């Protein structure tokens, strides 16, 4: 008796794997993203106030600057540099471990398209979840600036909120999401590549994991520059 095969591979397995990855990336990184963006906003509030202090620029400008720097640059870039370290190294180690323990060979022999099955869910999950994390980072960073500056009297809550609400350009939010999607794609694909083609033993696995982070970071910064040039000119 031959088994009846449906389409070569079951979409449900891809779906389940994508959900698992989304959960890992999203829930798993939420705390560190919140922590980092709180301080990011706080530091910006303090330093921008310091730089503008004593000049003729109105104080609500601090809010405006914090918001735009956060949205255009810091929320997507810092978040993704951190995620490359946390999520990227994890992806490389997971796939690399499967390679070394012959799990990938075992799947290949079952007839699984391993490059698709192991990589695609991670890339899709990253593209979906990283923009959400970046949104959280942006909001938390702006709140962080408020928390750091208003109680200490650097500027008043009303001034800050006025700044936040001034000159809002939706184009900047668009730039933020373009960056988030591109950076997510970069960190997932570089990390999976490093893991998938790992050879040797645990030392090489460690190196692949490090390479995943370093190369993702470099690629993210280069992409950051290119997007900046393309979308602001």
């Amino acid at each position, binding site marked *: 008796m031959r088994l009846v*095969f*449906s389409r*070569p*591979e*079951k979409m449900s397995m891809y779906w389940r794997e994508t959900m698992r990855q989304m959960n890992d990336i999203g829930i798993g990184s939420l705390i560190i993203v919140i922590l980092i963006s709180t301080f990011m906003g706080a530091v910006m509030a303090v330093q921008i106030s310091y730089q503008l202090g004593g000049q003729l620029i109105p104080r609500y400008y601090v809010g405006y600057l914090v918001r735009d720097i956060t949205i255009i640059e810091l929320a997507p870039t810092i978040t993704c540099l951190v995620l490359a370290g946390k999520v990227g190294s994890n992806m490389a180690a997971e796939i690399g471990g499967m390679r070394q323990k012959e799990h990938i060979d*075992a799947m*290949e*022999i*079952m007839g699984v398209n391993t490059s698709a099955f192991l990589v695609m869910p991670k890339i899709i999950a990253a593209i979906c979840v990283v923009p959400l994390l970046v949104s959280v980072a942006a909001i938390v960073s702006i709140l962080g600036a408020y928390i750091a500056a208003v109680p200490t009297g650097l500027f008043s809550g009303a001034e800050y909120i006025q700044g936040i609400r001034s000159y809002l350009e939706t184009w900047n939010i668009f730039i933020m999401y373009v960056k988030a999607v591109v950076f997510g794609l970069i960190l997932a694909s570089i990390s999976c590549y490093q893991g998938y083609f790992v050879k040797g033993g645990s030392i090489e696995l460690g190196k692949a994991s490090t390479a995943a982070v370093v190369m993702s970071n470099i690629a993210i910064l280069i992409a950051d520059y290119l997007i900046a040039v393309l979308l602001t000119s």
Partner: protein
Amino acid sequence: MIRAENIAKSFGDQHILEDINLTFEAGKTNLIIGRSGAGKTVLLKILVGLYPPTSGIVWYDNVNFTALAKKKVRDIRMQVGMLFQGTALFDSMTIEENVRFPMDMFTNKTAKEKLDRVNYCLERVSLKDVLKKYPSQLSGGMQKRVGIARAIVLQPKYLFCDEPNSGLDPKTSLVIDELIHDITIENNITTIINTHDMNSVMEIGDNIALLHNGHLAWEGSNDEVLTSKNEVLQDFVFASPFLQKVRNLHT
């Protein structure tokens, strides 16, 4: 049936295999034997397509497997089961999930049908009460059996086993050998086993091919092993000092 035609393999300038011509028949346990490092694993990996041969062709029945496009290779692979030397069980999944994985991936069975099949396969390899355990919680012999259960879950036409009883005690080895032998006959599978275990050779060696220094040194069945005058074979069979003494007593 699987046929190796003029297979050669080198890694860089290191020649591992040369001139390998072999036919592996269905419904029989075909053994590839030889010392450690003789090239058994490399040959097996060429036969399943994990390594491309440097030259030569692998035939699956009448299909030229070596020349197939990747997608067609996967179609054939759905009929292939393999037990790895290190079992290659997925260590983050339970035994149930491991054995079920090929079904999850390729079939439309209901959860109940899958569970029944998992239970049947585990029973077939004489394992009980392991569904919810993880591979690391089982002994080496039990892990090999799970590996076999996973390899046969989709009723393969071709079964590959790389050193199925390395690292096992003689009794467990025998059980595993007989298990593979029975499954092969029951389902008319083309089974290819790598081994250096003389007990397996004598027990289940329907067809035996001896690899030596990357060449095919001898071919025959287990009945012919002891009577053959082939020197390489004699060397391999009577490798242990104990067996040499037994032989000298006889002659």
